[in-house]
């Protein structure tokens, strides 16, 4: 009896594994809302949250190991056939993003459980809802569903952003919500234009339908694709849509900002899915609509962001600009629109997310030991743990700037290699190397002021006790994962290469999701209209 029950459970687990990264956080969050957030329930909430995220990480790793065999896992919700029902698709890229999300979420949650979660209500439930939205966006195989999961993660992020409250958080919160609501409106316009001209929103169906669209409809389709580029550009903080990011991330509480490091990557992921796959090189008349835009804008984003790094007057704002700079490099890699460029971008994206998340946490630990100087980049009282924090900052900074042998170096090297031989190679090399150098300069300036320009007369105004090992564990874990990416660079680049190759292979994608290839499954609006009767 027991054995059969276990067998049934294992079978169910295997069958429904693709939907678990979405279901698990949503059920956890609902359960937490039922428990309530009274002070005496907090230890229990923390345990549940940590167990749930750890489980999610294991599911994501299992999915990634399976995806690495090259098989696409297609999950038809309610078993409706593909273009009509909702499908979740887990390929190498999706699985990688799931692992990254959970790998960032676990240390961040651990850090937040050290005290931040007491400074507002329902932190843990919102955190889980945010994870649900992120995971859902990464596994969905449908554009409208992508919109829905965007909204889920955004609504959770609106509340998480103002967690801890305070005037500054409400100010940037309002602006953040307004800009994202406007972007959501554009998203809906783009999606409905695509539906009107291609007759489907299923990504696999779109991949085979978009090349067939011709004439006026193709022009509208291209306009819709560019509208979506604007929307994803807002999420990813692509120049000139990055303006909201530095103030927002700098105002958010440290664990929230660290979690938000993954949010810009949702924009990057969506650009890869829509503009490098659906509107990719094989999309016929609509091929590479984002081609002329993505590479120059990515490079310009990097340059502008590094000016922000140089001029930042507080540590969180400096790290926020670093986030923008990393997005610039990643999108420049995507903008090469070659498998090598995509692979480089994916590798660099994973690394930069880990480093930026670690830096947000470190910035707060550092600020806590500096008394009134807090997180401003100016001389302050001597630190309680100068050597430890200094070394961690050095490691993170060197990785962010791209010094060998850290993974930031490998990622940038891959981008440089991917660009060799194309017309814009000098631009890519010049900008990526300049950005790396200026990042190093900006971080060195901040580091020397924070760690070396002490004002001994203020000694004692800072916190005498250093950060507890418990709090330090989170940034150390994130940086450790970053260093591990250097050690495992071989297998990881093989994985990202395979992920990029898988994205370029539209035929197997369509076949896996729709079952058959080349079958017109839905009827796009086209001429002749059915009889013309019934039309107004």
């Amino acid at each position, binding site marked *: 009896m027991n054995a059969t029950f276990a067998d049934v459970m294992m079978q169910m687990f295997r069958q429904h594994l693709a939907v678990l990264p979405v279901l698990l956080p949503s059920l956890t969050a609902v359960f937490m809302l039922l428990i309530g957030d009274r002070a005496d329930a907090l230890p229990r909430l923390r345990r549940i949250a940590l167990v749930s995220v750890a489980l999610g990480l294991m599911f994501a790793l299992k999915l990634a190991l399976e995806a690495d065999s090259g098989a696409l896992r297609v999950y038809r919700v309610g078993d409706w056939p593909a273009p009509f029902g909702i499908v979740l698709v887990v390929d190498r890229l999706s699985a990688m993003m799931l692992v990254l999300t959970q790998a960032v979420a676990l240390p961040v949650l651990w850090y937040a459980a050290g005290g931040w979660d007491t400074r507002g209500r329902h932190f843990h439930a919102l955190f889980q809802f945010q994870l649900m939205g992120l995971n859902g966006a990464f596994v969905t195989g449908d554009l*409208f569903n992508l919109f*829905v999961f965007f*909204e889920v993660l955004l*609504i959770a992020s*609106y*509340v998480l952003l*103002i967690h801890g*409250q*305070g*005037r*500054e958080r*409400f*100010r940037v*919160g*309002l*602006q953040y*919500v*307004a800009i994202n*609501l*406007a972007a*959501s*409106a554009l998203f*809906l*316009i783009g*999606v*409905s*234009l695509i*539906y*009107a001209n291609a007759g489907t929103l299923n990504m696999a169906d779109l991949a085979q339908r978009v090349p067939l669209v011709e004439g006026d409809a193709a022009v509208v389709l291209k306009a819709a694709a560019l509208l979506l580029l604007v929307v994803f550009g807002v999420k990813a903080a692509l120049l000139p849509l990055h303006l909201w990011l530095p103030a927002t991330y*700098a105002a958010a509480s440290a664990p929230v900002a660290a979690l938000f490091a993954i949010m810009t990557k949702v924009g990057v992921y969506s650009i890869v899915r829509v503009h490098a796959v659906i509107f990719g090189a094989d999309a016929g008349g609509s091929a590479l609509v984002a081609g002329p835009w993505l590479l120059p804008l990515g490079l310009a984003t990097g340059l502008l962001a590094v000016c922000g790094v140089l001029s930042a*007057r*507080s540590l*969180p*704002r400096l790290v926020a600009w670093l986030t923008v700079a990393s997005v610039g490099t990643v999108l420049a890699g995507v903008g090469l629109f070659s498998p090598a460029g995509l692979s480089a971008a994916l590798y660099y994206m994973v690394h930069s997310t880990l480093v930026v998340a670690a830096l947000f946490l470190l910035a707060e630990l550092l600020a806590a030991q500096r008394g009134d100087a807090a*997180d*401003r980049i100016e001389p302050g009282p001597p630190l309680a743990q100068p050597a430890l924090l200094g070394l961690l900052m050095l490691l993170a900074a060197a990785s962010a700037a791209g010094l060998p042998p850290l993974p930031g170096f490998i990622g940038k090297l891959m981008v440089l290699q991917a660009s060799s031989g194309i017309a814009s190679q000098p631009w890519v090399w010049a900008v990526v190397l300049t950005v790396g150098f200026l990042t190093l300069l900006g971080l060195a300036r901040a580091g020397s002021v924070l760690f070396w320009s002490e004002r001994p007369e203020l000694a004692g105004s800072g916190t005498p006790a250093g950060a507890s090992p418990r709090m330090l564990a989170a940034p150390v874990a994130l940086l450790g994962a970053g260093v591990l990416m250097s050690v495992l660079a071989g297998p990881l680049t093989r994985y990202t290469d395979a992920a990029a190759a898988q994205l370029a292979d539209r035929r197997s994608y369509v076949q896996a999701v729709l079952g058959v290839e080349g079958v017109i499954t839905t009827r796009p*609006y086209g001429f002749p209209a*059915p*009889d013309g*009767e*019934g*039309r*107004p």
Partner: protein
Amino acid sequence: MSLLANVSMEFLVATGIGWVTACGVYLMLRGRSFPVVLGLTLLGYAVNIFIFVMGRLWSGAPPILGQGAVQADPLPQALVLTAIVIGFATTGFVIELALRSRAEAGTDHVDGREPGERPERDA
């Protein structure tokens, strides 16, 4: 009268959506939180009608199979329902947020301070 008779439904709906969108964008660019919220709401309405219209305009065509010779496309109608629900929820949230922001900052300006007032030390 004859002029109106020649105006197609498509033209009327399209200009209507365009007008509401323009009003929404104008209001969204105002400096006070209340007009911004109104602008976002108007933009949401325009987008909802836009999604609906992307299923083309039909008359006398039910969105259900087997009721007549002509069927309207039910999918944009399903999409617009989802969009309405999400839009409603976010509007509720943004109103609450605007109220709290006003209470915290003492002004309803989106910059958190009156124009011309010196900003607090900006990090």
